[in-house]
């Protein structure tokens, strides 16, 4: 198996410009293409330990971030392409890396309806996976990044992919998206945090991504059993607490955070029911990352896991 970092820089640049960087990411193969140096630098920084798929492997998602013509180059713009079609408007080149990551998220959000998909970070201690749904700004990615830097395994920063009628979560480890103040928070939290290009003035503000495959098992594709669901909420001026929440309320909130619960109809209901009735649900209000990690380390399902 060849890792991305084993490609000589010249070969990497050539293959990336020609759309010949097929990376194994979780259960999928993403084939990447870009003619932008910032995007190339970001991929080299954040994906060096990902495996290259072979030339005969099926590619699930063909994605590209390209400045496609003279007018775009003159304007300093680029486009995200999926199967060489542009689903979004052109964006400033300075935002290209963030847009590549969002586009890669979008591929999974829009497709793969064989899973119940929640908008959630997923982390694990040993064999215990913890699902953390959250609206943007709730602090799930910051907490996810911090957990990864303290020895937890990051399974995903964006998608909890749950095969219906199981409590399994399929790993899809990709960089963690950090926004605005969270970038400095994580830089201060650990000097080990590896951050990619900083994209400014995006519709989400300043965005940078953190290398997420920090755990020895990061690239394992075997599903893990979810035992806990935590709804994190960053609140600077509120008391920190980790408190149990009712399953019925959690069902509704998790469905709200799902990309495809409604699309799946009865299958979605049964999948969510199976998940919720077999896990413990909590609210987590925090403003101190070390406190939050300590609270999660102390959960009954997590204690004793390595």
């Amino acid at each position, binding site marked *: 198996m060849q890792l991305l970092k084993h490609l000589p820089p010249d070969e990497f640049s050539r293959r990336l410009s020609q759309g010949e960087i097929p990376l194994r990411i979780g259960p999928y193969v993403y084939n990447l293409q870009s003619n932008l140096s910032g995007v190339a630098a970001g991929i080299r920084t954040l994906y060096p330990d990902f495996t290259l798929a072979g030339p005969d492997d099926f590619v699930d998602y063909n994605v590209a971030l390209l400045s496609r013509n003279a007018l775009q180059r003159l304007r300093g713009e680029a486009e995200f392409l999926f199967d060489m079609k542009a689903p979004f408007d052109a964006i400033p080149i300075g935002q290209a890396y963030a847009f590549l990551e969002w586009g890669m998220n979008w591929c999974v959000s829009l497709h793969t309806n064989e899973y119940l998909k929640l908008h959630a970070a997923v982390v694990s201690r040993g064999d215990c996976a913890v699902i953390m749904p959250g609206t943007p700004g709730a602090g799930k990615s910051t907490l996810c990044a911090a957990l990864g830097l303290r020895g937890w395994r990051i399974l995903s920063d964006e998608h909890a992919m749950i095969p219906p009628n199981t409590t399994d979560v399929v790993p899809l480890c990709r960089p963690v998206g950090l926004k605005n103040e969270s970038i400095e928070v994580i830089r201060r939290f650990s000097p080990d945090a590896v951050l990619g290009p900083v994209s400014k003035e995006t519709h989400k503000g300043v965005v940078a991504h953190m290398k997420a495959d920090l755990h020895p098992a990061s690239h394992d594709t075997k599903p893990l059993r979810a035992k806990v669901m935590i709804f994190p909420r960053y609140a600077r001026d509120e008391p920190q607490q980790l408190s149990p929440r*009712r*399953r019925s309320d959690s*069902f509704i909130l998790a469905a709200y955070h799902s990309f495809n619960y*409604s699309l799946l109809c009865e299958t979605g209901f*049964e999948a969510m029911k199976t998940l*919720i009735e077999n896990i413990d649900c909590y609210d987590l209000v925090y403003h101190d990352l070390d406190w939050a990690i300590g609270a999660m380390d102390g959960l009954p399902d997590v204690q004793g896991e390595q």
Partner: protein
Amino acid sequence: MTWRTHSKGRLYDANESTVVYFDSYSGDTHLLTDFAGFVVQQLEPRPLTTEELMHRVADSVDPDDIADLAAALTGVLEELVALDILTRD
């Protein structure tokens, strides 16, 4: 008056004061009180009149839990109609 569900839905009851109800007719998912969930369950096998429903509710609900059972049942039925889970004839 007779009450009926549009279709057979699915219920998740975690023995809390609320239940989750999936309405197969609309595709909507509702968080209902356990009392409302009980009422819906009574109507799924077949439509019932208000009086039939009242008997079932009286047999199953602790009177200490709900002071005015008739008023509570009427209120819940109206809410379930407003949510388009039930219809009345």
